[in-house]
């Protein structure tokens, strides 16, 4: 296992240092994230992968500043963050477009918040709408779009705020496999074009290997860093890489790591169903 501290270098743009998150539940204190440390290099695409219940969504909320952590530190470009930070742009797993706003007004939302003049923000919004391939849908409302298109609107909205780090929590989880692969291509293309530093939280191995420079594998509860894998595949990449031999080796390697954790998670869940915490006393 790689010692976490060795993964950090001075030019990391995002540093997660020894972060612990504990929750108080009726059954006592639960550690969701346990001494997690890693760094993200500028321009890098890093994925955090782990089974359900490994605390990866907790980590997403902590880095995004929506959730406090118990111990440790998160910093962006040397500045400690405690709360949402302008350098970090979040894309959520759930449906997150504003149904009462057109595509343009959705994408212009973060620009509106900082008081950018209307003409300017519409122009900027158009640029990012075009970037995610939604030209011609500028004046449509979210209920007139498909799930994949709405997720692209969310992505464009976050990109429009021009974050230093794009932070995504399973943005394609609700989509079907083919849409997911094609949307993955779109994200890769945009990421390479903008040299966008990206941190992707996912449970999907194919997705992680397809897009990442490095993959951080997390353990099942409590969430720790199990391993960090360098993905040495050529760029620019597309979803076609899914068929290559090297790709298959990476997937197998990561699955070997994950399998252990995922089955631990599954046993744990079954135990809980057999003996619910409340029924013991």
């Amino acid at each position, binding site marked *: 296992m790689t010692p976490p501290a060795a993964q950090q270098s001075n030019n990391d743009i995002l540093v997660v240092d020894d972060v612990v998150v504990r929750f108080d539940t009726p059954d006592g204190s639960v550690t969701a994230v346990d001494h997690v440390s890693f760094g993200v290099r500028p321009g890098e695409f890093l994925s955090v992968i782990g089974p359900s219940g490994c605390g990866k969504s907790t980590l997403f909320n902590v880095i*995004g*500043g*929506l959730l406090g952590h118990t111990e440790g530190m998160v910093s962006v470009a040397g500045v400690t963050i405690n*709360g*949402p*930070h*302008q350098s*970090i*742009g*979040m894309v*959520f797993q*759930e*449906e*997150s477009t*504003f*149904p*009462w*706003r057109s595509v343009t007004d959705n994408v212009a*939302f*973060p620009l*509106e*918040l900082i008081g950018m003049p209307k003409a300017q923000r519409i122009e900027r919004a158009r640029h990012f709408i075009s970037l995610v391939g939604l030209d011609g849908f500028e004046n449509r*409302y*979210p*209920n007139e779009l498909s799930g994949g298109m709405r997720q692209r609107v969310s992505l464009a909205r976050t990109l429009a*705020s021009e974050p230093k780090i794009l932070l995504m929590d399973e943005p394609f989880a609700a989509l079907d496999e083919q849409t997911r692969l094609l949307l993955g291509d779109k994200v890769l293309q945009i990421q390479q074009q903008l040299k966008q530093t990206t941190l992707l939280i996912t449970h999907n191995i194919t997705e992680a290997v397809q897009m990442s420079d490095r993959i951080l594998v997390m353990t099942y509860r409590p969430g720790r860093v199990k391993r960090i894998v360098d993905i040495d595949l050529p760029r620019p990449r597309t979803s076609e890489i899914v068929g290559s031999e090297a790709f298959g080796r990476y997937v197998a390697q990561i699955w070997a790591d994950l399998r252990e954790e995922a089955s631990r998670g599954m046993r744990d869940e079954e135990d809980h169903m057999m003996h619910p915490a409340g029924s013991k006393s």
Partner: protein
Amino acid sequence: MADTSRVTPLAAPAPVMSPVTLLRIVIILTVLAVWELLSYSGWLYQDVVPSLLAIGGALIDLLTHGEYYFNLAVTAGEVGTALLLGGSLGLIVGITLGANRFLSKAFESYLYYLGPTPKIIFFPIMIMWFGVGPGSKIALGTLSCFFPVALSAAAGMRQIDKTLIRVGKSFRASTAQMVFKIYLPAMRHPIINGVRLGLGVALIGTLLAETKLSNKGIGFLIINAYSTFDMPRMYAMLIVLFILSIGANAVVGRLGGLDTIKRN
């Protein structure tokens, strides 16, 4: 070709009016005819059922005199002010209760208890506080309007998709931006519904108060016509009021409807 002519029913003339419209007209005409017969029959005490001609005459008389419009303006002003005061107060209280679990647990049950209570029982207190003029009517209308708006706003606030709130926070929206750009637009349907209910009860509260104790307003005119036994005039005013209520409801409904079509 013979085949085509069979499948094109273009030749059949479109009906002038739908069966429903026709039925409605028939019902109205029947009621009017029965009314008129009743008024000439002498079965009921004279003037309780005045003839349509008398009511029509009273209606014209009513609408051609400035006095009626003055009183209409008084009532409209009272209802409008009540809607504005009760509505904004309800909105603020509703949003606060919807946003804060502690306050909601502490106070919201009072809203549920007081909401269905007939507000007219507070009228004597309102007279003592605000006098017999428009003040006490506005107060009663405000009180009536407050509850449905507050309850709808509180419920609407809790129904807001949590993800949208997280989006706002992740973009570091200020409290004011959260309220005006996320909470209010996300709650537009329950709010419009609350305002619609609020308008109805504000109208009821105000008019009821006017019929009890007042010196101007439509409620006052109606009860005045009743106490001088000017039945045609009373019926004429009821008809106008009925039409105005339908109009007001349609306007608020239209506002909500337009919103639905345009922005889902």
